């Protein structure tokens, strides 16, 4: 009797789970989206993957490590460690110091640009405006600082250079109020 009852219950649960597996199926891997949300979207490829999304996919599949994204800095690495339940570790290729990179943007020297359009084709966010044999320029607000357009891609030395993002009243930040010694910052 008990055996029959338990078998029926087990069958019912089995059917329930089976239906749930089909009807409530998640098409996309939500972890990939969560990882992608943390990544800085510079699309620079410094992680050895061809963009942020592919790195997120590799991370979710366990094929990449959490410390491969230099633009995300220490903050990004910690967020990834938190999300994936891993131990934080220093950034690969870094100097071991826990810091975030200074935001940079690329600038085209329009006086030496030859209008080769090479940079237009690699810019992952279409931040460069130009046409063949016309001077190119970079829209600062759209540039992610991925450095993909720098020489050797750009055939003209010093034509495209990286500069620090100009401080404005909108992006300026208050610094940490105490020094390492615990004294007030002047």
């Amino acid at each position: 009797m008990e055996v029959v009852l338990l078998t029926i219950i087990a069958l019912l649960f089995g059917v329930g789970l089976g239906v749930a597996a089909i009807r409530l199926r998640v098409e996309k891997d939500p972890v990939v989206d969560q990882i992608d949300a943390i990544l800085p979207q510079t699309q620079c490829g410094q992680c050895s993957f061809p963009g942020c999304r592919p790195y997120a996919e590799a991370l979710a599949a366990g094929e990449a490590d959490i410390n491969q994204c230099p633009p995300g800095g220490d903050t990004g690495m910690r967020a990834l460690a938190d999300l994936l339940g891993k131990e934080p570790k220093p950034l690969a290729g870094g100097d071991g110091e826990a810091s975030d990179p200074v935001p940079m943007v690329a600038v085209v020297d329009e006086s030496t640009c030859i209008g080769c359009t090479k940079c237009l084709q690699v810019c992952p966010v279409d931040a460069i405006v130009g046409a063949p044999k016309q001077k190119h320029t970079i829209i600062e607000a759209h540039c992610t600082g991925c450095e993909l357009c720098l020489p050797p891609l750009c055939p003209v030395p010093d034509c495209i250079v990286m500069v620090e993002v100009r401080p404005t009243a909108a992006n300026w930040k208050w610094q940490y109020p105490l020094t390492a010694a615990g004294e007030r910052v002047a």
Partner: protein
Amino acid sequence: MKRLWRFPGGLRLPGSKDLSTGGAIAPLAAPARVYLPLRQHAGAAAKPVVQAGDRVVRGQLVAAPSAFVSAAVHASVSGRVVEISDHAIPHPAGIMEPCVVIEAEPGRAGDATPSLGPVPAAGDMEALRERIRAAGIVGLGGAVFPSAAKLKPSRPIDTLVVNGVECEPYITCDDALMRERPEAVIHGSLVLMGMVEAGRCVVAVEDNKPQAAARLREALKAVVAGGRQDAGTLEVVEVPTRFPAGGEKQLVRTLTGREVPRGGLPYEVGVVCINVGTAAAVAAAVREGRPLTSRVVTVTGPGIRRPGNFEVALGTPVADLIEAAGGTTAEEVELIMGGPMMGRRLESDRTMVVKATNCILVTPVRTERSEPVMPCIRCGACAEVCPINLLPQQLYWHARGRSFDKLEPYGLADCIECGCCAVVCPSRIPLVDFYRFAKSEIADQERKRRSAEESRARTNARNARIEQQKREQEARKAARKAARRKPKADKAEAPEGEKQAPQDGEARRAVGGAS
């Protein structure tokens, strides 16, 4: 006597206001050059409508508002526009922003203020609002929010609060204005009351300014005697002196007993709050057609020789103002725009007076080392004085540990940075510095998140475009192949190499065309 409520926390601070209340408001001679930042207000920067070389007269529009929350900028002297270039705005880090630079030509004919046009009819709200917008009026209490945007509340308003509390130590510009131009304050208040259709209007003055209150009452009596019906619903109320009684939310609480919801604005509880200086500016704009080109600025502190209040053309270099106040008493001074509690340190005197400049506080730089910061002893004094009922200690721990996500539930965004907690802290912890640090870090994270989202969208759009180009190219290739195969159906296929060349050309053209 009107009933008053009490807001939590707060402090009685030494006023130090006598320093600058001795004399009348002194008009400052027009400087040789004025620097008018395009963004002296909350919101989007104004768009310049003049070019280098243009002649302008005082009161002429030099930059027009570029959005709903934006404000016009007018020439504050008559002269020639020298350039539109970056100059250090009043900011702790000396940040540069674009300014219209005007060189004064004192002898120039037509040194009259151009009128904003005929006085709009009292009932024409849209025309009045347009007038206030055209006059470039912003909240002169310090928040510099464009006033016209504030005068279109989406909910019914029953009370207009005109804020003459001026609770911060040292600052006396509103006090001086109320004593010397009470009639303008009353008149502006009546205009604004009509505009927001409030049933009553309260002009609030801290009870340490009895002269100001008395002058306002006299002016009100004269207006009522002059036959204005609506003036009867206006009253002057003295509120107890307790910092930060002049904070918008604190004042609404004191006068009406209502609490402005978290993250909300006073209009949500049926109140609009306007500074007395703003009310006077509204009166000037509506009655006389005068745009906002100057303001009253207090120059005070132990580091200045002749403290006082000055009527200063906007864009005047701070150095000129300090010179007019007799110069500094010490070789090296620290400059603060605003008061000692909520003011912002200025990087140097090579900046200008803007619409937000209510006070320049000058103190000699202390030579002795400041006392060290000690560990928090969890005494709780900070929580007792917090006017928002926050837990400053918890905010401090999390800000110090950079756990920014934990600060939101503790209401960091509601902190008004009044500085009460830091004043009473026995361990001298710079609490407000921590909150400012955390707030700007959180804002930065949010900015980065938004720009990452934008980059993601741009990348996805680009990938989709490349994908589509590839598909189109393949389709063209297939079509060509098919077309070629038909006539040569019986012949052998062309060798691989010949087909490759035209494809490459096609690809290059496709990329060139897209970029």
